[in-house]
């Protein structure tokens, strides 16, 4: 036995020594460089634009693809990116001229044919996770020659179409490497290197790590990138917070909890950057099942609720300022946004006005309201948010609120089946245009399916969508927001600020936190 033990000891020592020697060997060279590390809790569904319509995928696409039009950092004005210019040729034909000499990083030419291919394949593939629904306004796309692409639109003078070109439906892919009828696997997309954006992808491990290398041939809206960037994915915001605090990563972008942000604000080592947000949190009323005997009473109940809410308190107490009060369905910072709810109901609760509106409509109080909220889709603070809403509505005894929560899948199915008289929802815009906060909510057969339909509203929506005159469009938008405040089919609560936390030595974070919601790595440096 002693002999065996000795042999085993010798063998184990040899194995250990071998490992150490191997570890201490000459070593292969690596190229750490001086790149930035950005952390996120978002997930990538697909790098291929035909297979994704989510924030995590858009964060990658923004860095590696070019679009026809795009938003330069800090601007809300659409600027040509791969295009030289774009304009309406006729009310239903929108034409773009492509810059000549553009190339993908793999050496293939970027032509109008690639652009037409990119849009057409999204519609043809119609992937369940894809952005095909964003191209509902496009009837046809064709390349007239190497530099001209023409979009035939379903409605004349559709002013939202240029905005669609900047969304998840807008990245231009390489016709020679992307299949026309199926989504390209991420590893194959990285291998194909069909990127013409500010960066190309080096090492890539899906939802673990993505290495963005500066594309020296990039010629577009974002300008010259300043630094290589590595994107690191997290599951837990707590780990993201710890790593940015320790300096293991340079920037944490999406999504830290309000408590984490509040704690990081006190740190001397990092800076919390905020920018205008587009995310909207709101309450939907089901006009069929909500309390009230007739339409007049139901509207009075909704208006009374609007009088009683204190958004500022929810913003500061629950969300520590990471969400700010939303006084219109179109959030502050968007073109044509007003403060219609503040104008009509005030910024502070007004129980007397609420009581009067209910009395005038003959509503008996307390109004019994079943208010549904969801615990697993809109963040951990939803619970506290709706506890605050309940408390505010019940103050003064006008409402008796029963809060109920349901798991997301069931919630999504039940809310459109008239199961909830009033319920929580959130909205993240597809593109930064006020119409994206209006048509999806108030046009006939909208996604809310809350039985709201109003011919006057439909006409106003049609008008703002097709009005090329900015001043006249803004006037129409103001009317719509006023009408929403009057009818209260939904009750806007809060709008989410964009927040990124970065080491003090990192520059360019605030530049990219603009209303375009595009987090451009090209502005970052240290």
């Amino acid at each position: 036995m002693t002999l065996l033990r000795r042999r085993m000891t010798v063998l184990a020592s040899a194995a250990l020594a071998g490992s150490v020697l191997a570890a201490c060997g000459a070593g292969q060279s690596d190229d750490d460089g001086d790149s930035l590390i950005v952390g996120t809790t978002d997930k990538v569904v697909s790098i291929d634009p035909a297979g994704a319509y989510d924030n995590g995928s858009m964060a990658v696409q923004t860095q590696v693809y070019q679009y026809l039009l795009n938003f330069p950092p800090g601007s809300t004005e659409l600027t040509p990116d791969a295009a030289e210019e774009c304009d309406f040729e006729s009310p239903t034909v929108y034409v773009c001229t492509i810059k000549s000499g553009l190339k993908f990083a793999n050496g293939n030419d970027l032509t109008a044919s690639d652009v037409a291919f990119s849009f057409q394949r999204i519609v043809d593939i119609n992937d369940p996770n894809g952005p095909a629904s964003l191209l509902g306004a496009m009837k046809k796309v064709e390349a007239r020659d190497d530099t001209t692409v023409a979009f035939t639109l379903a409605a004349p003078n559709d002013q939202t179409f240029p905005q669609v070109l900047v969304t998840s439906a807008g990245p231009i892919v390489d016709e020679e490497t992307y299949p026309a009828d199926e989504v390209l696997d991420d590893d194959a997309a990285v291998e194909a290197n069909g990127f013409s954006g500010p960066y190309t992808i080096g090492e890539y491990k899906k939802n673990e790590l993505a290495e963005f290398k500066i594309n020296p041939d990039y010629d577009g809206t974002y300008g010259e990138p300043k630094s290589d960037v590595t994107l690191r994915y997290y599951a837990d915001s707590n780990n993201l917070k710890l790593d940015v605090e320790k300096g293991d990563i340079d920037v944490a972008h999406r999504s830290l909890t309000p408590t984490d942000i509040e704690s990081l604000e006190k740190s001397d080592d990092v800076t919390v950057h905020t920018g205008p947000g587009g995310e909207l949190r709101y309450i939907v009323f089901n006009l069929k099942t909500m309390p009230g005997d007739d339409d007049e009473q139901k509207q009075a109940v909704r208006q009374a609720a609007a009088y009683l809410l204190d958004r500022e308190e929810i913003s500061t107490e629950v969300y520590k300022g990471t969400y700010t009060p939303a006084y219109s369905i179109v959030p502050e910072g968007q073109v044509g946004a007003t403060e219609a709810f503040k104008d009509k109901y005030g910024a502070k609760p007004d129980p007397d006005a609420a009581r009067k509106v209910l009395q005038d409509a003959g509503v008996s109080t307390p109004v019994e309201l079943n208010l549904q909220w969801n615990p697993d889709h809109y963040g951990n603070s939803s619970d506290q948010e709706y506890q605050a809403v309940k408390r505010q509505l019940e103050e003064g005894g006008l409402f008796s609120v029963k809060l109920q929560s349901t798991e997301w899948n069931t919630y999504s199915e039940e809310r459109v089946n008239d199961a909830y008289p009033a319920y929580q929802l959130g909205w993240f815009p597809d593109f930064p245009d006020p119409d994206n906060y209006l048509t999806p909510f108030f046009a006939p057969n909208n996604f809310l399916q809350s039985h709201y339909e109003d011919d006057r509203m439909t006409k106003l929506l049609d008008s703002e969508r097709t009005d090329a005159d900015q001043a006249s469009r803004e006037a129409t938008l103001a009317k719509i927001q006023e009408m929403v405040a009057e009818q209260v089919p939904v009750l806007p609560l809060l709008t989410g600020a964009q927040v990124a936390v970065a080491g003090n030595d990192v520059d360019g974070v605030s530049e990219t936190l603009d209303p375009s919601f595009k987090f451009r790595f090209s502005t970052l440096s240290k």
Partner: protein
Amino acid sequence: MTTDVLVAADSPAAEPPQRRGGLSPLARYLLIRLALIVPMLWVLVTLVFFLMRVIGDPITAAQGGRLTAEQIAERKAEAGLDRPILTQYVEYLGDIVRGDFGRTLTDNREVTDILLVNGAATLELSFWALFVAFGLGIPLGRVAARHRDRWPDVVLRLFAIVAYAAPVFFVGLLLKLATAPFGWPTAGRASTATELTLAKVDPQTNIMIVDAILWGEPRYVVDVLQHAVLPAVALGLLTGGVFLRLVRVNLLQTLRADYVTAARAKGVPERKVVSKHAFRNALVPVVTVMGMQVAMLLAGAVLTETTFEWKGIGYELAQYLIRRDFLAVQGIVTVIAFIVCVASFVIDAVVALVDPRVRF
């Protein structure tokens, strides 16, 4: 699937095993154990398949707050989720029999790719956890047995109870909070620079420590080891506590055996009695229990990997479950079940081969 260990010597009616169908009893026993894996996996796959359909679909999970019911129905049809559930079930069974686990619905990944890449990460974590479990449980169990009912024994018994009773995520969180202020790595399998470098290793094993050794620079090996410490301790304590108690109890029983008394009577020093005569025999039940511990480790891995951002199949399972991705969850659960079944089978086979008390 664990073996029933009966002491044949205690049973006077025990008869020598008979050959049936030309197979030795041991071979027949092992074949039956092996064959049982198939129905067990089938039951599990079936259960998971239907349960996942009950808790919702990935398209509603992703788009329920922004599309109309018609649009969601269209997308479900596009993904083939509107077909009769039995058709989907039979099709899925056919696919997995051919080794095709399909592609995930929510991020278009080959499920087999997840099993290979993330499975390697879980394998690595399990290795480190077992390293901690053996390293702590066995020597401490021995110390506890030697000092029976004295203060070291009491302290170690208490430690063992706390180790396996405390939830893994709680222990993980405590470890993170305790070490983070000192800059110790609390998330991931390696730092970003190391991961980027090791991604270039060819051929890549996806086992970080092996890739680091293959790359050949000590700083990467050290970095990988540093990142493994907290998750390995959190998960290893769970199993280590079980091992500690098991070794203690078995060593105490063995120390009461006749042959140990005989050794003592012959004047063999107590230290030698324990280390040479009693300790090894006390380890046999530990081997038996290891089969069950594999299941426990994998269950613990789901929580440990999520707590420490260790991107193994446990972590992926939690992520896909949140997104209601049927295919990913079914594939991962099937493979975890397969690993547990095979591990149990291997342990049963080893015990049957080495322990003459096992009856077939």
